[in-house]
């Protein structure tokens, strides 16, 4: 890790000397490279490094090279607070790419607001962050569930059982599932919330069997909870499963033995197996730089495209990295990029991103097929609920049960 960032720094320095000594654009990177979350987040750093190398090779952002300042936040919220302060006040980064868990984002957001920084959150999450200092490229529930749940209900039936991690992300996602199931005339036959860190699911498996659903929505977070899949299969549970978070983030289909995850359907904006020419080329370039990468997940691709989006923003703002100029560029609605997943655009009202949503099906041998693709799903919820960052900046996170209060 240190070696790679050293190489990036050195190549940055070499290219910067050849670019007539323009001051570099500093991108701070705060990601968990050790601790509980490292499994899903190590490739976020790699995605950023890949993008930075490619952009620097082509001349940098508005002629200035990218310099990465990388900190390991050790899956610890207090480290996010410490290093966000450090990267903004001491290192004077122009922009920061930070955070995996929603808790870490909410920990550093007050500091970003206080120090007037600009931060990209490149992770899927429960939605609702309405803060002018934040740009969110991660997928949100309206993008993942409004596509997944109706499709599953049409294919398998209307009785749904949800098991979700028992915290904000799991509870809000479960709320989205509940609402969509009701809207489509279905029935929630059960809902179970599992505390984080739990790894034993015998009772849950029994409850699911008792409820007899047509399919199970699994919103499990963390490596301990993903043990569910192994135990469910061993316990004889063979129902189809639907998820917005597993496989796409934690590549369970590579880690568990087939056919544990067979018949699992996941909506994700990117996974390695996507076979469009852009995606294949992206994977080739990635593996050329990082041959030992276990898997390229959706967060890795989000982080990669986020660097290019930032480049778009700065160049549309005539080379300025000041936040008011960047926000003006975003407000035109024209910040887009042809990402490995497809074309993505930043929505000015919420500063979230549209996505191409792929429905990935895990087959019996754990290979992936794509029964359906939804191009250009916009992050419509915040805008429809009344939030508009071009007009006001509430610096807060809304939820479906705590929406923005509509102006009279």
């Amino acid at each position, binding site marked *: 890790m240190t070696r790679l960032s050293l190489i990036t720094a050195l190549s940055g320095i070499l290219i910067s000397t050849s670019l007539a000594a323009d001051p570099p654009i500093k991108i701070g990177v705060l990601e968990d490279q050790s601790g509980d979350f490292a499994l899903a987040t190590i490739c976020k750093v790699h995605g950023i490094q890949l993008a930075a190398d490619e952009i620097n090779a082509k001349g940098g952002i508005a002629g200035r090279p990218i310099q990465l300042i990388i900190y390991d936040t050790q899956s610890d919220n207090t480290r996010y607070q410490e290093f966000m302060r450090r990267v903004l006040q001491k290192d004077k980064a122009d922009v920061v790419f930070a955070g995996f868990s929603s808790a870490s984002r909410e920990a550093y957001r007050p500091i970003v607001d206080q120090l007037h920084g600009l931060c990209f959150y490149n992770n899927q999450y429960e939605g609702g962050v309405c803060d002018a200092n934040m740009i969110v490229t991660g997928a949100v529930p309206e993008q993942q569930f409004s596509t997944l749940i109706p499709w599953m209900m049409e294919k398998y039936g209307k009785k749904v059982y949800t098991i979700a991690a028992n915290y904000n992300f799991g509870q809000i996602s479960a709320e989205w599932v509940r609402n969509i199931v009701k809207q489509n005339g279905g029935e929630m036959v059960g809902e179970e919330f599992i505390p984080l860190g739990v790894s034993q699911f015998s009772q849950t498996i029994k409850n699911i069997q008792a409820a007899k659903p047509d399919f199970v929505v699994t919103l499990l977070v963390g490596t301990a909870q993903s043990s569910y899949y192994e135990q469910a299969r061993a*316990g004889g549970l063979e129902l189809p499963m639907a998820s917005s978070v597993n496989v796409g983030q934690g590549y369970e289909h590579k880690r568990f*033995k087939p056919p544990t995850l067979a018949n699992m359907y996941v909506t994700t904006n990117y996974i390695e197996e996507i076979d469009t020419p852009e995606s294949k080329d992206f994977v080739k370039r990635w593996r050329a730089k990082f041959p030992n990468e276990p898997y390229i997940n959706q967060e890795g691709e989000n982080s990669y495209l986020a660097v290019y989006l930032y480049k778009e923003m700065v160049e549309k703002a005539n080379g300025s990295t000041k936040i008011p100029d960047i926000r003006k560029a975003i407000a035109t609605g024209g910040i887009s990029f042809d990402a490995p997943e497809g074309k993505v655009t930043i929505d000015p009202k919420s500063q979230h991103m549209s996505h191409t949503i792929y429905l990935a099906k895990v087959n019996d041998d754990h290979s992936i097929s794509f029964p359906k693709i939804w191009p250009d799903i916009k992050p419509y919820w915040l805008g429809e609920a009344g939030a508009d960052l071009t007009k006001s900046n509430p610096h807060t996170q809304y939820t479906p049960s705590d929406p923005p209060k509509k102006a009279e």
Partner: protein
Amino acid sequence: MDIASAIFGFLYQIGDAAAFLVLASAGLAVVFGMMGVINMAHGEFIMFGAYGTAMAVRAGLPLPLAIAAGSLATGVIGVIIERLVICRLYGRPLDTIVATWGISLIFSQGTLILLGSSFPSAGTPLGSFTVGAYSYSWYRLILMLAAIVLLVGLWLLVNRTRFGILARATIQMPQMAEALGVKTRVVYSLTFGLGAALAGLTGGLYAPTMTMVPTMGSTFILEAFVTVVVGGADVFLGTAPAAGALGITKAIFTSWQGQLTGQIALLVAVILVIRLLPRGLSGWILKERS
């Protein structure tokens, strides 16, 4: 038939929860109960057993042998750790917290660096069977059986073998034992190694059912500690009935109100038991006897 299957289902859940507690705490009970060492690296020993088993399976060994191999490897690591660090900390239980915390950091981060953030799982063998309207996993029954065999085997080892007698003597009256010619240094090392091997066994047994990541031990550690402390100093009079009682509590509350309630009930039970029986279950049982 319905009542029978309901009873079976209920017993299965209790057995599953109690087996988890027994297996999680057995190694810690030996190390803490017998030696007074608070081993914060217990979770890492479990992880080593799991990783060792998974690697052995990948190398082609059948699962039972792989589990034995993982357990043995962890035991050896335990002996090494005892020689290097633990032997200087006897009689200083609170210092063992700091030392073993340091060891746990080194182990889990070292595994992350050397083996990456995850390891492919071995897959649960044996499939499922049905009773009444539900299907169950054969392997979970094996885990329950393993917990019972473990307790019986440990009892035989401690009470009926030469090593067991030497270990008990050394731990209860080290100077006397040494005066009688027992190599206490070796006994300590082997006992700690036994505790580590038991933790490794737990890791190996659970490896086919779980995600394999360097931090996988953390899901066992809290339950292990509370079971050992509620049980008190004696492994058999304490840890086993503690695991049983706490397992029943957890199973009942989990089936009634879900996993969170089960966890909270477990912690509340721990607080209550310690309040009522300040020397733990075994302390109370021993007092009752005398």
